[in-house]
């Protein structure tokens, strides 16, 4: 920025009065705050990264390069390339036993994030209450608020392995409850839901006529149990918008490739928003995603095995340090309790960063129930994990002595 424009900026009035109050009042995420604190620090080992440490498999990258060479650079149909939608339908049927018609029940979106935004915008009437199990991924509540909805947190607990319990959900239901957002396997807790866990939730959903947005972006990353899609629970398919994508399973975060599936009435409405806002997901990403589904499942399995190995390492390591850590059955996060140190999540993670040079995200950044916990991503190399655990061990030891 030039000196002149700086001067103009300094003299100009604040522009915030032009903003919509809803947007102005949204708090920046706690992760953002922590990011600013971390960046600029050297010799940090980070357990704060919410994405795979694998680079997108070469055959996927190569397919994209080849498509560019052949000139695949135009718009695709709004809902995404038909071949890709067909591949997604087949994959979902084979992997999770849910059947969608690629013709009018699937939209390819710009990441799972757009899918969630589309779903909430299509469904929320101002004043509607949106139930969100917490601690949870950071974007559900702000997007709900932007749409005029009211986010209502339903707490989940370490002693339940952060599973959603029907009685806790039921307790938060009011006549205004309309939507339930589910994110299992869960970021940040690593919690999962089994078929038996889902049944009582499905009952509450049915009885209260809720619509469910099931963000199953981590569905491929489960370890001792195969993922059960909420849409596969009897009676739930029509009231579920299933969100998934390529980021976590195929190490494709930067491609921004996601999709949403559901009843054609809902998908049709979401497609209207999608076509007026983004037109279609980028064609390069769609070509890559198709390659991932066609030829990437074996490499995906290798990645899952590798996460599982590191999961065992970090959970064991955290417990050896003396922190209580539930067994995370999904995603790539461990969510240990740091309550025994007497520090708050924020204090603990700031001091861990400054004194032990390890970055991990304070649990309170993920909403209710996250206080007292720390999100540790184990999507990093075994040697980095070992070093991080070593440093954390010394830090916690020092805390407990002092």
């Amino acid at each position, binding site marked *: 920025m030039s000196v002149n424009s700086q001067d103009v900026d300094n003299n100009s009035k604040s522009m915030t009065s032009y903003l919509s109050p809803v947007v102005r009042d949204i708090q920046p*995420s706690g*992760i953002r705050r*922590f*990011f600013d604190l*971390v*960046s600029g620090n050297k010799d*940090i080992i*980070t357990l*704060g*990264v*919410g*994405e795979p*440490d694998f*680079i997108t498999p070469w055959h996927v990258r190569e397919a994209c390069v080849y498509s560019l060479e052949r000139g695949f650079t135009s718009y695709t149909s709004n809902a995404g390339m038909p071949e890709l939608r067909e591949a997604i339908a087949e994959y979902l049927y084979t992997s999770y036993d849910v059947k969608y018609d690629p013709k009018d029940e699937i939209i390819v979106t710009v990441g799972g994030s757009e899918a969630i935004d589309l779903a909430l915008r299509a469904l929320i009437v101002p004043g509607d209450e949106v139930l969100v199990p917490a601690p949870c*991924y*950071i*974007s559900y509540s702000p997007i709900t608020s932007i749409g005029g909805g009211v986010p209502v947190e339903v707490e989940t607990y370490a002693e339940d392995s952060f599973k959603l319990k029907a009685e806790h959900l039921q307790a938060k239901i009011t006549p205004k409850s309309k939507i339930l957002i589910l994110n299992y396997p869960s*970021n940040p807790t690593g919690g999962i839901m089994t078929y038996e866990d889902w049944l009582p939730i499905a009952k509450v959903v049915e009885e209260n006529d809720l619509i469910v947005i099931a963000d199953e972006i981590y569905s491929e990353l489960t370890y001792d149990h195969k993922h059960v899609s909420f849409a596969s629970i009897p009676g739930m398919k029509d009231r579920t918008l299933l969100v998934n994508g390529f980021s976590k399973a195929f190490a494709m975060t930067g491609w921004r490739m996601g999709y949403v599936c559901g009843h054609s009435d809902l998908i049709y409405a979401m497609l209207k928003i999608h076509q007026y806002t983004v037109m279609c997901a980028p064609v390069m990403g769609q070509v890559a995603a198709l390659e991932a589904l066609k030829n990437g499942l074996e490499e995906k399995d290798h990645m899952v*095995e590798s996460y599982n*190995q*590191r999961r*065992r*390492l970090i959970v*064991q390591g955290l417990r050896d340090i003396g922190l209580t850590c539930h067994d995370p059955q999904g995603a790539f996060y461990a969510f240990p309790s740091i309550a025994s140190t007497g520090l708050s999540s924020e204090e603990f993670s700031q001091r861990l960063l400054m004194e032990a040079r390890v*970055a991990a*995200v304070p649990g309170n950044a993920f909403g209710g129930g996250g206080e007292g916990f720390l999100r540790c991503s184990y999507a990093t190399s*075994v040697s980095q994990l*070992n070093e991080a655990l070593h440093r954390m061990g010394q830090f916690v030891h020092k805390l407990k002595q002092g």
Partner: protein
Amino acid sequence: MRQMSELKLKVLDLLKEDARREPELLATLLGATPEEVAAAITELEEDNVIVKYATIVNSSKLDDEKVTALIEVQITPERGRGFEAIAERVYLFPQVMSVYLMSGAYDLLVEVEGRNLKEVASFVSDKLSTLESVLSTKTHFILKKYKQDGIIFEDPEEDRRLLISP
């Protein structure tokens, strides 16, 4: 060959990535006990599945840079013993690094290492070509190694992720 246990296969994968990993670490990674892992390793060693724990060297980083050549060798197999006898006569030379029996236009692919070009050339003309059953040789000198045994020597793919992300 009998079916190898899943544990052994996973131990092998992890050791191929890094042979210096301790059984305790392997046990944690694989959800097994250190005793189970140690027993698996012992069996793999006894069965000669694990042949050796060697070091992969990027010799271009060394001052005394060596010369390596891949030599295509056409041979007449020996009656009764096929290619085994001649392969043995070749691989016993210490300057021979690897020997593969190939399908296609030639029979053996021989990797030879020498201190300089001359040394490799004289090995080929004096030792290899003069073997009775060798019909012809074709020598290719290696100019640069980019990847060996699945390991990229100078991996350009660094971690470009943000330090913190949601």
